């Protein structure tokens, strides 16, 4: 795209880069961060089928709200915050969901909580029981957002606890506690099917 277009929009929206900073090429940044944001969306949204829409919406909001970006954190952290926020709101958007249901009214749609084709492929190592994984999915989904999101975010490539804390805007200690309690709850729930129990 044309760089002067970026500049004019940025100026119109009141965002001025600091002296010496290159203006942000949002298209480029969006392309670069999209795979990362997609992972964050998968961690944050309860319905995996919404992840792509969530990223899309977050990027549009990020673009429109770029003047709010103060440069006090990396752009990818700022964008990831928006992804999390959009994910949570998306989940609550029953109207939107209901609309889809009507539109897909004559089609069968399977639930997104694992009872569908997501689990069709056997895991390559063949070590994990399908039933166990379905149970993991149900257990993770049963966790409240504040535990589920940091726990899943830990699985995002290269995402560390300090960065999760910055994205969620909560202290690192709180992130650790929430992840720990999420793990603990899952452990309790999954105990009957864990291999470690069988070894006892």
């Amino acid at each position, binding site marked *: *795209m044309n760089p002067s277009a970026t500049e004019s929009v940025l100026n119109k929206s009141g965002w001025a880069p600091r002296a010496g900073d290159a203006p942000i090429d949002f298209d480029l940044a*969006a392309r670069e961060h999209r795979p990362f944001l997609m992972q964050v969306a998968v*961690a944050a949204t309860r319905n995996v089928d919404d992840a792509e829409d969530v990223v899309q919406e977050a990027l*549009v909001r990020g673009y*429109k709200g770029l003047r709010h970006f103060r440069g006090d954190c990396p752009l990818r952290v700022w964008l990831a915050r*928006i992804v999390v926020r959009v994910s949570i709101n998306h989940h609550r958007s029953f109207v939107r969901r209901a609309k889809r249901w009507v539109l897909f009214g004559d*089609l069968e749609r399977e639930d997104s909580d694992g009872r569908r084709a997501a689990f*069709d492929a056997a895991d390559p190592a063949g070590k994990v029981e399908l039933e166990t994984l379905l149970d993991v999915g149900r257990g993770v989904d049963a966790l409240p957002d504040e535990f589920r999101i940091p726990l899943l975010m830990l699985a995002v490539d290269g995402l560390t606890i300090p960065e999760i804390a910055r994205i969620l805007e909560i202290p690192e*200690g709180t992130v650790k506690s929430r992840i720990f309690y999420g793990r603990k709850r899952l452990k309790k729930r999954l105990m009957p099917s864990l291999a470690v129990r069988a070894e006892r």
Partner: protein
Amino acid sequence: MTKSCQWVESRLEAYVSDSLTPAERGELDRHASDCAACRSELAAFAEVDALVAEHFRRRLRSASRPVRPMVRPLRPVGVAGASLAAVWIGFAALGPDAVDPDAADKFPAALEAERAKPDPDPELAIPLAEDPLQPQPTPVVRFRVQDAAGYVHTLEDFSGSVLVLGVVDGNAAAAADFEASYARYTSESGLRFLAVPADGVDLGASRFPTMANRASTLMETDPGEFTIISPEGEVHARGSLDNGELPAAIDSGLRLWRDRFPSGP
């Protein structure tokens, strides 16, 4: 002589979040090599982590699929023998809000379309101070309790302290656990304790502070569970009241409080 199982238990959170000192980690590993119970506890955590990671990979794979398998013409759509083509027509009719199999490629186009609009929608402004994990405003009351004198309290009345909130059900062990922790930690100035009886439960004469719920979700705390709430009113930790998790969670809350107010509030 290695450390006790209780010592290990109190450091599990730090261990699994990789924030023990090397010396402590060494101690813990030494204990675990001699203690089957702790070893299997650690192995269970490792297994849960691996399962969560696998669950996440699968979700990611299914989220990234260009063609969504969840929309299938299992039943004929109106006419007999409706084909996959009918599904794609469905997609096309849904407009920009619909699942778009080529969303990734179409992104720049969507952005250009946004760009063409005259002024940013004020609704889309992003208030960055907002905590993304706090629920958006809804009619649901998260925390409202009433004391014996009839005064109603909200979370603000507990701000500045770490609140140990227990929702006590009919289980005597749960009440006993809460009472034991209250007795043990009652001198800690950063903590406040509050037990709320679950619906229909009569605590009788308890030896810890109690108040009645006033149609709130009690920070989404289920009967028989506790929630540790930070001085800012956010959920710090949760757990079950009757399985010994409470002291470790209170310790974690205390650490949080000391982080916040190194020299007292």
